[in-house]
């Protein structure tokens, strides 16, 4: 091996700490980008593949009860490849001997063996239940502490209970797809319906089209035709859902989220590149004398350039050795986590070639680009300058009359003098820390960049979390009371109110109504489902966020406030405009009085006054559904009151369908969003790790370059603590500056992240909410990180004996 390459090998091996820092700096960026790129590829392929493998229905019609004949007529419709009927109803279940009831959506299959739509994947036990046996969707196990072959207790509408054993756990990739708020599912055969007090009839039709299964417009068109046909023959279609065969309903959301993560991954690469640039700059500065000697012995610029370029490539290759396998594992781990959350399967562990190439490209190019400037500068340096061994601003500087103080240093000295003139003397060791902070301005800038970005993202993620929670809370104010009380038949408002108010803690009762229909275009074609809630117009439970117009009035007739989801179909929609609706088979024209903000996943939401809708439904002064306000609004209290009201009304002979605490459904939504926030937080922590690595590197380099000064300090009386304090204070000052900058930068970051996430999840931008939490945690974290990042260099500094220091010079 030629001596020059041996030198490079020594450079690599001798200073292991520095090599480790550079290699880790590169590896963090490569790892992040590998994880995101790999997960992106795996998820975008497997999510839809897994979804389509289970033969998802293109059209799901939620109807009133229907029989085999109606199902056959759907099947015979032109363009329909297959149709199956299900009966879906919700029921309360619990493990016998326990108190907690959980609401399950029970799905009754006509024939599990010939089932060809929305297939179930066996997970454990049987995949076909016999009569009076139940299968559970695997997600249900998170809500119910039950295991295979154990009994579940079912509560029937009349209050009586029945038990059935859980004979199998299955996965239903179609269950809850597209609905964050879906209840867990259970599956039985039609033969078990009577046992649970249900008629042996269908109420849901699942349809697969013979062609155009990925053409959403064709699917909608077919859905409208089917609905039309069914309604003409006297059936009632309450709601319809449309899905493409090869696209998971949440694909857009997941891809948008992965897009954000990808952006953060790229940012981490940028941050790590600044870290690399910093370290390589310092390395070249330390090697100036070597370069001087090489040149003195006849080494040419390009030879020096090649040597250090080889060193950078060696760093890069070492980083790739670490980052590629970890990145592959991380990508699959992340994909597995998302698949678990979204309830789909992966096609197995694999290395994603594209992610691999991206990692190699990033791992080689980024250090090369980051190191190019220092290497070019280093190789260009003259022998004289190289042998003098310093590129620093004024360190070691011998004064000349012509030399002038940089303005920033001049300012610092002036400031200290001004303070001193007013009797304020800053301790000199702290002055050293303060002024040292600003000595290597380009290094400081790069360190601050990484640390600030990490901090800003960290803070922004907390703000985004609160923003999302706040929005869920706002959404809750559209239809969530402390307790929702639903019956299987309508009851008089006054009767329910009197009874409910007799329960301690109930303060107010409202009867609500509900009507669903279709939103039509100008040609009477079906655009989307529309669900019209009808609370009392003066209800205090609904706190809408109006975008334009007004809220509903008691005297409104065929007037509604509509969610801004309608703007997707009518971009110019204004209050006062008419909209065509099809309600219970009738085409009607309603007037829009206001437009409000709301998440639209299950169609367009609208509000009309109870006063009008109850008359329209021939249910004046009566209702199926009641909303109750209690004296306290916390989840445990709501749960307790729901339980009490449930028992009370059942004991009084009411046909109770379900009683639910308002906070319960919100908590489910919040949990789903928190999963997303966790991803963002992981990325934020990664950026913070890169930032603190940058700070550690900077402090290490600073200490190394100031070894002589540390020696002087020791010579004039600085003990270990004094030396360590000076170094740590410098780290903490950098941390504090970065905190200040992060606070500023977190504002645009919060708005940007909130907007992107809310557009991905809710299809609408939402109002940003700020929380002190992120700021406080980051402040603590950055102080701790900067102190920790400085401790090792500080200890090294304190360990130096003065002789070593002078020898260093």
């Amino acid at each position, binding site marked *: 091996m030629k001596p020059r390459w041996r030198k490079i090998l020594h450079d690599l091996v001798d200073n292991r700490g520095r090599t480790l820092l550079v290699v880790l700096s590169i590896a963090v960026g490569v790892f992040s980008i590998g994880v995101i790129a790999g997960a992106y590829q795996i998820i975008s392929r497997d999510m839809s593949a897994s979804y389509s493998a289970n033969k998802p229905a293109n059209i799901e019609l939620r109807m009133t009860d229907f029989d085999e004949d109606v199902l056959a007529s759907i099947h015979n419709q032109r363009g329909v490849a297959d149709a199956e009927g299900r009966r879906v109803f919700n029921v309360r279940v619990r493990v016998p001997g326990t108190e907690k009831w959980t609401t399950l959506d029970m799905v009754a299959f006509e024939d599990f063996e010939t089932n060809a739509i929305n297939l179930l994947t066996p997970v454990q036990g049987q995949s076909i239940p016999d009569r009076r046996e139940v299968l559970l969707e695997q997600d249900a196990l998170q809500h119910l502490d039950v295991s295979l072959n154990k009994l579940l207790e079912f509560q029937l509408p009349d209050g009586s209970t029945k038990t059935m054993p859980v004979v199998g756990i299955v996965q239903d990739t179609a269950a809850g797809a597209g609905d964050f708020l879906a209840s867990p599912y259970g599956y039985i055969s039609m033969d078990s319906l009577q046992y649970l007090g249900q008629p042996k009839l269908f109420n849901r039709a699942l349809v697969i089209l013979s062609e155009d299964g990925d053409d959403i417009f064709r699917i909608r068109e077919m859905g409208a035709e089917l609905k039309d046909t069914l309604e003409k023959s006297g059936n009632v279609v309450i709601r319809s859902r449309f899905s493409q065969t090869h696209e998971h309903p949440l694909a857009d959301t997941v891809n948008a989220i992965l897009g954000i993560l990808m952006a953060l991954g790229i940012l981490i690469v940028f941050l790590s590149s600044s870290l690399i640039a910093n370290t390589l700059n310092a390395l070249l500065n330390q090697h100036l004398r070597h370069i001087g000697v090489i040149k003195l012995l006849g080494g040419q610029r390009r030879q020096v350039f090649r040597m250090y370029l080889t060193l950078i490539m060696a760093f890069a290759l070492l980083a790739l050795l670490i980052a590629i396998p970890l990145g592959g594992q991380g990508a699959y781990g992340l994909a597995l986590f998302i698949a678990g959350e979204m309830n789909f399967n992966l096609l197995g562990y694999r290395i994603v070639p594209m992610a691999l190439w991206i990692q190699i490209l990033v791992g080689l190019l980024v250090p090369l680009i980051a190191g190019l400037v220092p290497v070019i500068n280093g190789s260009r340096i003259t022998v004289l300058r190289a042998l003098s061994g310093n590129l620093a601003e004024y*360190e070691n500087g011998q004064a000349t009359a012509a*030399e002038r103080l940089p303005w920033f240093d001049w300012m610092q000295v002036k400031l*200290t003098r001004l303070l001193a003139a007013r009797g304020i003397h800053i301790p000199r060791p702290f002055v*050293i820390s303060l002024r040292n902070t600003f000595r290597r301005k380009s290094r400081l800038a790069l360190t601050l960049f990484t640390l600030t970005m990490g901090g800003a993202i960290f803070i922004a993620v907390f703000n985004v979390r609160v923003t999302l929670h706040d929005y869920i809370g706002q959404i809750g104010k559209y239809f969530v009371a402390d307790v929702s009380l639903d019956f299987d038949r309508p009851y008089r408002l006054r009767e329910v109110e009197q009874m409910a108010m007799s329960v301690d803690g109930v303060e107010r009762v409202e009867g609500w109504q509900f009507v669903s229909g279709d939103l039509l275009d100008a040609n009477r074609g079906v655009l989307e489902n529309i669900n019209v809630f009808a609370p009392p117009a003066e209800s205090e439970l609904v706190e809408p966020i109006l975008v334009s117009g007004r809220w509903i009035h008691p005297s409104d007739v065929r007037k509604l406030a509509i969610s801004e989801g309608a703007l997707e179909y009518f971009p110019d929609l204004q209050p006062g405009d008419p909209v065509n609706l099809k309600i219970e088979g009738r085409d009607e024209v309603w007037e829009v009085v206001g437009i409000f903000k709301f998440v639209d996943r299950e169609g367009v939401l609208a509000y009309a006054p109870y006063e009008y809708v109850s008359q329209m439904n021939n249910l004046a002064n009566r209702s199926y559904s009641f909303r109750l306000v209690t004296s306290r609004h916390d989840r445990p209290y709501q749960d307790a009151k729901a339980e009490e009201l449930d028992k009370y009304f059942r004991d009084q002979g009411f046909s109770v369908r379900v009683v639910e605490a308002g906070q319960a459904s919100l908590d489910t939504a919040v949990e789903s969003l928190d999963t997303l926030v966790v991803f963002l937080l992981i990325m934020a922590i990664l950026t913070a790790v890169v930032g603190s690595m940058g700070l550690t590197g900077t402090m290490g380099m600073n200490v190394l370059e100031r070894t002589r*000064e540390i020696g002087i300090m020791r010579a004039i*009386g600085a*003990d270990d603590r004094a030396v360590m304090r000076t170094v740590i204070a410098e780290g903490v000052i950098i941390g504090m500056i970065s905190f200040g900058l992060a606070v500023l930068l977190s504002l645009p970051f919060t708005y940007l992240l909130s907007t992107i996430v809310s557009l991905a999840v809710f299809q609408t931008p939402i109002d940003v909410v700020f929380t002190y939490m992120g700021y406080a945690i980051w402040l603590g974290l950055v102080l701790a990180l900067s102190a920790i990042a400085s401790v090792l260099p500080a200890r090294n500094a304190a360990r130096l*004996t*003065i002789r070593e220091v002078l020898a260093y010079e």
Partner: protein
Amino acid sequence: MPRLAPNLDPDQAAAPAPEAMIALRGVVKTFKSAAGEFTALKGIDLVIDRGEFVSIVGKSGSGKSTLLNMVTGIDHPTQGRVVIGGTDIYTGITESQRSKWRGRNLGIVFQFFQLLPMLTLLENVMLSMDFAEMYDFDERPARALDMLKLVGLESFANKLPLLVSTGQQQLAAIARALACDPPLLVADEPTGNLDSTSAGAIIDLFEELARRGKTVVMVTHDPSLTSRTTRNIVIADGVLIGDTIRKHSGPSQKGKRTVAVPRLMSRLVRGGGFGRPPRSDE
């Protein structure tokens, strides 16, 4: 090989005479490297009294800086003991504690001044008081300014080292060394990097300090400076080979040579203890 103090048992060595500022006993320093061992100091015995102005001379590599490092606590002896102002600075004392002790008891002046470049001259002088925790916090600026006045730099107090001449930097370094009022001032080639005018001023200052009772020990290879000190020690190959004491007739006769008597001789004749032996001023 001449030695400056006779071999004595350790008990005697541990009790130097109270007037001794520096007492080295059997100091050996061996450096180990991949190339092998190298002994820079070969059993040095040396006593320097309070108020002496001593120059240590020798060729490059003779061990003079290593000897100075032993006195200042900058390096560790491989063997032997070093007692400064009554304190054994290498026994039962950590590096960190030694730094603190040094700040309070010793002023060091380096060849390259070693002022901290980010601090003004005033702040550099105050820094040693901060580290040594000497004087009240509010008293330190005024004292630092007094030190700078002593060396004639009060008008440069708020300048950074970069903006003053090398001579002024060295004067500031002396002011810093004096800030905690240490009884001992140690200088390593203090004029090696200065022009003759600046060098003269520095030596004048050292003489003045010695007259005020400070002990000044200076390493130099400039023969013209040795004539200004009251005692001249010569070191070669890690061994003290000469020790000359000069008697100055007074401040007006500054720089005039007096008759020097090899100190070695007097000590051998008298066989004094490890503490300061009676001085021969013939």
